[in-house]
């Protein structure tokens, strides 16, 4: 059985705006899935929906999210609260906002350990110290007593990873964890996440807009656009033989390796507004290969083999 089994996940805001549409995937223990998408594609909302972190009054969730065989979406608030932070932890783009500014780093990590493992304050603080060592924060003893604003951006992100790992989660959700960091720090944090993921055998779902980040860390990639997974597959398959016109266009338009003076192959138009998206392929308005049949009815999944999935009419048809 998979660690996480998501079926028919739909998220609707304010009654009518469908921001996540029929997302389905499964994740094995110790596997790294990267959800790659541009702003407004629904990638962060998908991640938050898994933990039910979206405001309840304005959001309608449907589908199933089975974690270890239990449906997180059907679970009571109390049960879910005890799983958040213990079995499933989350890290965010901006650690300065994720920490409480008025408590020390050590106290905030120790609090989480106490809450979930019921150990004494001293033992919890000792564990916090070990965690700071684990994420390679130098002079950990001193940093336990530091407030969040006293740490640099990279150190704060390490501290947030320490906090997330404090109860040895089986699944880590990471929402653009390196986007706010400088290039030389970003690669440090990515390598740290990769090492910890391997050593702790933890499954990770990481959301990013950056193809480079995805290639550094992913086992599998899901390309998201207009609230849907348009293409999923192993990192090698997606990078080397993208099949969906959007994925192809995305890679062609990134300047990596482009020759100066030559024009970039840009995708025309703008990413869609989820409120205006109807049925049919969400990419149809920007697709060079669009046909009338692409609109109106939802596009079926096409599975060319392995765990590859493409949601495009034109890929599935015989040549």
């Amino acid at each position, binding site marked *: 059985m998979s660690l996480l089994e998501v079926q028919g996940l739909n998220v609707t805001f304010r009654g009518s705006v469908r921001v996540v549409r029929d997302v389905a995937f499964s994740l094995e223990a110790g596997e790294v899935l990267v959800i790659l998408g*541009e*702003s407004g594609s629904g990638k962060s909302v998908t991640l938050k929906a898994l933990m039910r972190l979206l405001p309840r009054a304005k959001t309608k969730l449907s589908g199933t999210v089975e974690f270890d065989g239990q449906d997180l979406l059907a679970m009571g608030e109390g049960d879910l609260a005890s799983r958040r932070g213990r079995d499933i932890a989350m890290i965010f783009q901006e650690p300065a906002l994720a920490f409480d500014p008025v408590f020390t780093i050590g106290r905030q990590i120790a609090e989480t350990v106490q809450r979930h493992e019921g150990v004494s304050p001293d033992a919890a603080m000792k564990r916090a110290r070990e965690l700071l060592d684990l994420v390679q924060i*130098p002079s950990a003893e001193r940093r336990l007593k530091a407030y969040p604003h006293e740490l*640099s*951006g*990279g*150190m704060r992100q390490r501290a947030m990873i320490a906090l997330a790992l404090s109860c040895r989660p089986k699944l880590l959700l990471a929402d653009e964890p390196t986007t706010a960091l*400088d*290039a*030389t*720090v*970003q*690669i*440090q944090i*990515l*390598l740290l996440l990769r090492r910890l993921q391997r050593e702790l055998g933890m499954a990770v779902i990481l959301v990013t*807009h*950056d*193809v*480079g*980040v995805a*290639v*550094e860390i*992913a086992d599998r990639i899901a390309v998201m656009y207009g609230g849907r997974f348009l293409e999923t597959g192993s*990192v*090698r398959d997606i*990078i080397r033989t993208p099949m969906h016109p959007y994925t192809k*266009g*995305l890679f062609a*338009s*990134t*300047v*990596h*390796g*482009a020759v*100066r*003076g030559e*024009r*970039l*192959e*840009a*995708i*025309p138009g*703008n*990413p869609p507004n989820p409120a205006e998206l109807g049925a049919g392929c969400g990419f149809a308005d*920007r697709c060079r290969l669009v046909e009338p049949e692409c609109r109106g009815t939802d596009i079926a999944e096409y599975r060319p083999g392995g765990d590859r999935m493409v949601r495009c009419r034109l890929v599935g048809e015989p040549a």
Partner: protein
Amino acid sequence: MSALPDTRDRGGPNQPLLIVTSLRKYFPIRGGLLNRQVASVQAVDDVSFSVRKGETLGIVGESGCGKSTTARLLMRLIEPDVGQVVFDGEAVGAQDGISVRDLRRSMQMVFQDSYASLNPRLPIESSISFGQRFQGIGKVEAAARSRDLLARVGLEPNRFAQRYPHELSGGQRQRVNIARALALDPRLLILDEAVSALDKSVEAQVLNLLADLKAAFDLTYIFISHDLNVVRYISDRVMVMYLGKVVEIGPVDQVYANPRHPYTSALLSAMPSMDPDHRTEQPPLTGDPPNPINPPSGCRFRTRCAFAEDVCAVAPALTALDPADEHAVSCHRETAGSGHSGAPAS
């Protein structure tokens, strides 16, 4: 453009469009009982470079390296402490030079945050006309030029001219900002992280647009970015900054293929590999960039540099590597006779 005097090419094609000499800006930090100055942020320290007519100079560096402060100093949005800027042979702000007001007509800037750059209460046509009206161009003429510019940046004037910034997407808003920057027929455009906030698919469109406009309006660009791929794509020469200093400058292909400063090498190897079978195994640097308040003495990179020696306690000067003066680096290891054990024989 009849209302404006001709500001085009005065110094001739060989006169660099911009010569910057010993530019310095320290921001004071006040504190304590009497609100005295207790420290300073050494944001830009002794920065010199020039920009040739028609080229694109890329400026790269991490946060706090002074790249945006440099841009603001060039535009005189902030006053430099020390230093001289010469625009097409005329010293900026000097008696016999070019006034700041005239400079701002010839030099325009596009910022990263496309929404914050526009007045939310003005339709975009009015935003584009505003600078022209300020410089004394009539209402009708300014409006006509604004609509023409909207068309040039790919926004159909009849559909877009009366829209407000919140009705546009990020890419469209950045096109408006570019149109506004072009409204006064400038010669130099400073693009400060102008495509960084855009989605990749839109970024490519705007980069293509910038290339078209550069050719059409005979522009020179200073392109500031943290994205090394984009800088490589768009720039002719690149300047690498670290903690307020220029560490390396040179032709973009040469710097990327053969970086000479250890920081430039580290920055380049921190780029994601883009190959799942050859992932990055070792981070090129540890730790974060130091705080620009009280930066390290001597070479500012020595606290993170693998090749640091005693001699690095003395600040190295930016030294040309070849007689043509194209590629210059500020590192004792590359300077003959510096005393560094790795220095080339003189």
